[in-house]
Structures are given as structure tokens and as C-alpha cells.
């Protein structure tokens, strides 16, 4: 059954890849036209010449029919060639490899932090029902849910970086330090990552809390919780091994999706902090209709989500003994 799951995943990746190609090519706005217009006026050359030059620069072979472009694109992917970014004039693959570590650093810490904190607080809120904590969880989640993540990022930036000057305004590390495995660099990296991590965690922890609270509340109605109480088990044990262990199962599936989506970065938060992760380049790619870069990054996200789902399926059966792999 595992083979079947893997085959389905491969097919899904292929389908998503094709769909992305079509969608990206059909996005409104002819970037070549506007760039050519720009070039023609700044360099004082005829529009037609400028148009041809820009088109060549994009390397899209825009004269070829769409399906030819598509096959060329797919064939190149299998050769590990995602094309060159139009605006940076370097291979998309290189941008990905330079951006990915930053995104993985910030988002893996943020996701683990928000999931763990959310799961603990959500379970407690369900366990100690009718307390202040329960109202807090609901209020916090609805407020952060209604606040867009870039706003949270901007607020953090204004308070802690602009006014208090506790944290840097932008970038991933101080330009004075030499990148490498040395303490100065690591400290600088963590120092720069702090605010983006906070922004993401503040924004996402509420969702995990709510999800965990809802899940734990429904588990509380199960007979084995009452039975555990009647057995005179300690509260702590019931909350962790009986309530928590069962309630974590549904949010866990969502965690896998979040981890997969992580490869796409967090476009708005990374843009606010000018943090050079995948999301930052995503923003740039969309703004300038940098097709090759956009397609490459979309592909990365797709593969991430699908692979994470596959891993979640495998892991789930270890968490819940009732589920066998591939069912």
C-alpha cells in the first residue's frame, strides 16, 4: 500500500506542476510589454527592438506555442534546470538553495514553538474548563486570526526594532561577521531571526490552541477519560497520557501540512523584515512576473506539502495504533 501512496504522491506533484505552469503563464499583466516600454524610453531605442531584447532576456521563447514551452519546461526540470531568474539573471536553483536555509531556520523553530505551546495551552484550556484560560484562548485566537500576519510583523518591527532598538531592522545576519560555523555568526543569525520567529509564532499559535482545545474537548467526552478519573489516576497523568495523547492526533495531521507548506516560506513576514528566505523571493517573483522563479518556488512548495503528507501518513500509524500504514 505504501507503493500506491508514493505513486499517488508523484502523480499529484506532476499534476500540480502542470497546473502551476498554466496558471502562471495566464496571470494578468504583460510584464514584457511594460519592461520594453521602460527600456525603450530610458535607452532611447525603438520599442520593437527593446521588446525583442526583453523577450530574449526572459528566455521564455514566447513565440513558441504554450504546449512546446510546457514540454521544454518539464524536460528541463528532469535535468535539474529550473531556468534563470529574469530579475536576478542567475539560475532559479541557486536562489532556492541560498534562500531555503533561512526559511527553514525561521519556520521550523516557529512551527515547532507554536505547535508545542498551542497544544499545551489548548489541552489545559479544555481540561480546566470554565476558567479564565479558556476565555483567553478564544479571545487570543480570534484577535490574531483577524490580524493579518504582515501587520503583526510591522507592529513588532516598529516597537522592538525602530523604537526600542532591541532587534535589527532587516537582513539575516550582520554584514560585519563572516558567515561560517563560528559563535559570532550564529548569535547574529539568531538575533536577526528572533523577530520573524516571533511574528510567525504569535500569528499561528492561536490556531493550534483552538484546534487542540476543540480536539481535547471532544476527547473529554470519551468514556476512557471518566474511567481514568474513576481509577484515581493523577490529574497530570490523565491530562498528558489520556487526554493529550488522544487529542493530539487530529492537529498532528495539520502539523504535517504546515511543515510541508514551510518550504514556501512566509512571503509577507519575510518581506517586512527583508529576510532573504523563500517567501521574500516569492514576493519579488510575483511582483515582477519572474515566471521561472515563480514556477520554481511553487514547485518547491508543492513537493514540500506532498512529501510532508506522505511522511505524516507513515508517522500517524506510530501515534495511533488503530491505524495501519497506508489505510
Amino acid at each position: 500500500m505504501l507503493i500506491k501512496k508514493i505513486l499517488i504522491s508523484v502523480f499529484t506533484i506532476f499534476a500540480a506542476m502542470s497546473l502551476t505552469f498554466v496558471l502562471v503563464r495566464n496571470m494578468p499583466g504583460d510584464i514584457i510589454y511594460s519592461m520594453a516600454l521602460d527600456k525603450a524610453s530610458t535607452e532611447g531605442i525603438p520599442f520593437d527592438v527593446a521588446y525583442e531584447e526583453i523577450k530574449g532576456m526572459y528566455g521564455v521563447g514566447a513565440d513558441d506555442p504554450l504546449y512546446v514551452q510546457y514540454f521544454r519546461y518539464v524536460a528541463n526540470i528532469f535535468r535539474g534546470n529550473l531556468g534563470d531568474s529574469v530579475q536576478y539573471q542567475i539560475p532559479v536553483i541557486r536562489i532556492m538553495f541560498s534562500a531555503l536555509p533561512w526559511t527553514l531556520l525561521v519556520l521550523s523553530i516557529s512551527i515547532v514553538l507554536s505547535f508545542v505551546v498551542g497544544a499545551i495551552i489548548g489541552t489545559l484550556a479544555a481540561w480546566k474548563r470554565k476558567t479564565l484560560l479558556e476565555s483567553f484562548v478564544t479571545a487570543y485566537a480570534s484577535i490574531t486570526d483577524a490580524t493579518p500576519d504582515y501587520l503583526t510583523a510591522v507592529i513588532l518591527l516598529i516597537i522592538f526594532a525602530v523604537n526600542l532598538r532591541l532587534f535589527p531592522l532587516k537582513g539575516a545576519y550582520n554584514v560585519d561577521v563572516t558567515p561560517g560555523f563560528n559563535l559570532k555568526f550564529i548569535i547574529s543569525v539568531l538575533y536577526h531571526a528572533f523577530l520573524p520567529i516571533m511574528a510567525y509564532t504569535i500569528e499561528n499559535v492561536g490556531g493550534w490552541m483552538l484546534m487542540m482545545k476543540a480536539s481535547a474537548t471532544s476527547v473529554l467526552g470519551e468514556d476512557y477519560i471518566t474511567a481514568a478519573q474513576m481509577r484515581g489516576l493523577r490529574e497530570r497523568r490523565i491530562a498528558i497520557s489520556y487526554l493529550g495523547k488522544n487529542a493530539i492526533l487530529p492537529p498532528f495531521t495539520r502539523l504535517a501540512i504546515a511543515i510541508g507548506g514551510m518550504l514556501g516560506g512566509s512571503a509577507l513576514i519575510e518581506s517586512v523584515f527583508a529576510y532573504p528566505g523563500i517567501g521574500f523571493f516569492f514576493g519579488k517573483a510575483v511582483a515582477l512576473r519572474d515566471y521561472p522563479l515563480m514556477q520554481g518556488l511553487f514547485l518547491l512548495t508543492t513537493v514540500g506539502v506532498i512529501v510532508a503528507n506522505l511522511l505524516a501518513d507513515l508517522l500517524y500509524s506510530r501515534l495511533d495504533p488503530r491505524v495501519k500504514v497506508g489505510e
Partner: protein
Amino acid sequence: MEILNIEDLVVDYEVQEGILRSVNHVFLKVRKGEFMAIIGESGCGKTTIVQAIFNVMPSNGYIRQGRILFNGTDILSLDPESQRRIRWEKIAAVFQAAQSSLNPVLKIKDQVIDTVLDHRQMPRVEIFERAGKLLKVVGLEPDRVMNSYPHELSGGMRQRVVIAMALLLDPELLILDEPTTALDLITQAQLIETLQHLHEDLSITMLMVTHDVSNVAKVADRVAVMYAAQIVEVGSVESIFYNPCHPYTIGLINAIPSVVGDLSAKKPIPGTPPSLINPPVGCRFHPRCPYASRLCREKAPELIDMEPDHIVACHHRLDVKRLQHEVI
């Protein structure tokens, strides 16, 4: 000597339609060493009494008044930690839906270990030894069961696991809440037999709560009959089955289908149990009672001695008794 003495217990549930009084001024004594049964229809408040004994109420349930004396100490007045210690060490239970009372993500052995370690310091080897012995008593294969997850066992096996777990800490009182529901007839019979053996061999006091009147006749020493949140009759199993004095008790016994004889002779009690949000004034059974009079509609009867160790709450207990004997 009473091991359990419930005095004037009142339990309410707050539901959307208002206050549902599930247990209404209940007095009940369980003597040391006996097998006592509480019988009554579903929803009459039997299970709520069990929940109150453990003081584990659903979020909308409240114990309004009353005392629950265990060996003379009021459990409800104790601090939470002392209450927790009484649970399972002194009073254990096999619950309604025991099938689902095991944690699905933990192996049986882990649940056994949790249960013992939260009450006693005991090396694992000893815990396994003790659990193994008890699993054998209830007719299970210890090695296989201990290493299984609940879903890998059949319903009957899970029920037996729960019974074995109830005996882990040598409780003085074992409460059985509908222990045989959701089991097939053969498993039911085997289980009742196991329970009987346990009662006799380990001399544990048993309190069984059930609507299965025929099983009660087999195992119980004394029986309390509950109707609409109140106790209406208490007596020895002989007096309840051969000399019932409450019209409801008679109805319950007549409703048992007999293996021999005509099925049409089975007479269900007419009507349905009353709402516990708005119970009838006077005797709560009067809308369904063939003997109901004006007195019954106005004044609630009290529990009165009929004969030694046999009390009944009915204004017409003497007429009922006389007519009952004429019919027989």
C-alpha cells in the same frame, strides 16, 4: 455493618430545558460482604448514583446535597487528593460501556501500570505478576492481553480486562454499572458467572446497577428498585421477586420474557417514564399505576417498613400485596 451509606443524595443536571433532577433524596445502604443490586429503567438515575459515589460528574452535573459515607467517612467532604486515593484503592468500578473505558492509544500493560503506580509503589515485575494472576481469574491469557492495544481485543475480552483492572488494588467495594450490556448472551452468562465467583472467592462487596432484572435474580442478595430518580422499594432478593409490594416492581418483574410459557403473558408497564425536569406531583408512578388514587396524585409516599428488611414507598402497598397474592 454498612460499607456504603448514601444519605439524602440529590444530584441535578443543568440541561437546556432547565434543571433535571437525576437523583432525588436517595437513601441507600450497602452492607459489607453482600451483593446488592439497583434495578430500574434507563434514565432513572442509577448511573448518576455511581458517578456521585466517585464524585466524577459530567460538566453539567452537580451534587446538590447529601452524604456518601464509606466505612463511616463522608467521601464528598474529603479533599481532592484523599478522594482520589479512595477511588480504586477502596472502591473500584466496572462501568457502563466498559468496552470504551480503555485508552485506545496505550497498551493494556501501560494502563495497568498507570493504575497501580498512581496509588502504590510497586516494582514492575510485581505489577505484572499481580495483573497476570487477575487476568487468569477472569479467564484471559495474560501475555497476549497485556501486550495488546484495546482495539485488538474483542468486546467480551475488554470487559474482562476492565474487571481484572478493577481488582488490581484489592478494593473493598466493587461497583458494576450495567456490566453485561453490549455483550452477546453467552458472554453475558460467562461474565455473570465470573462475577459470582469473584464475590464468593474474594468476598468483595458488590453493588450492581442494571436494568437486566433476570441477572439480578441470579446473583444479588438484596435489591433496590429505582423509579424516576427515587428509590421505591428495597428488600432481599426473595422478598422483591416473590413478594413485591410496589406496583412498579411488579411491572418490572412481569416484563421479563420467560423462556418457557407464552410470550403474550409478558405484560409491559403501560406509558413511559416521566420527565425528570417536570416530574409528576405526588407519587411519581401514579400516571402509569393501576392502583392510583387521589392520595397518590397529591402526596408523595415515603419508604415504610413492610416486613423486616423490606421497605416500600407506596400508599396502597397493602392492597397491592393482597391483590398480588390473589393473582398468583
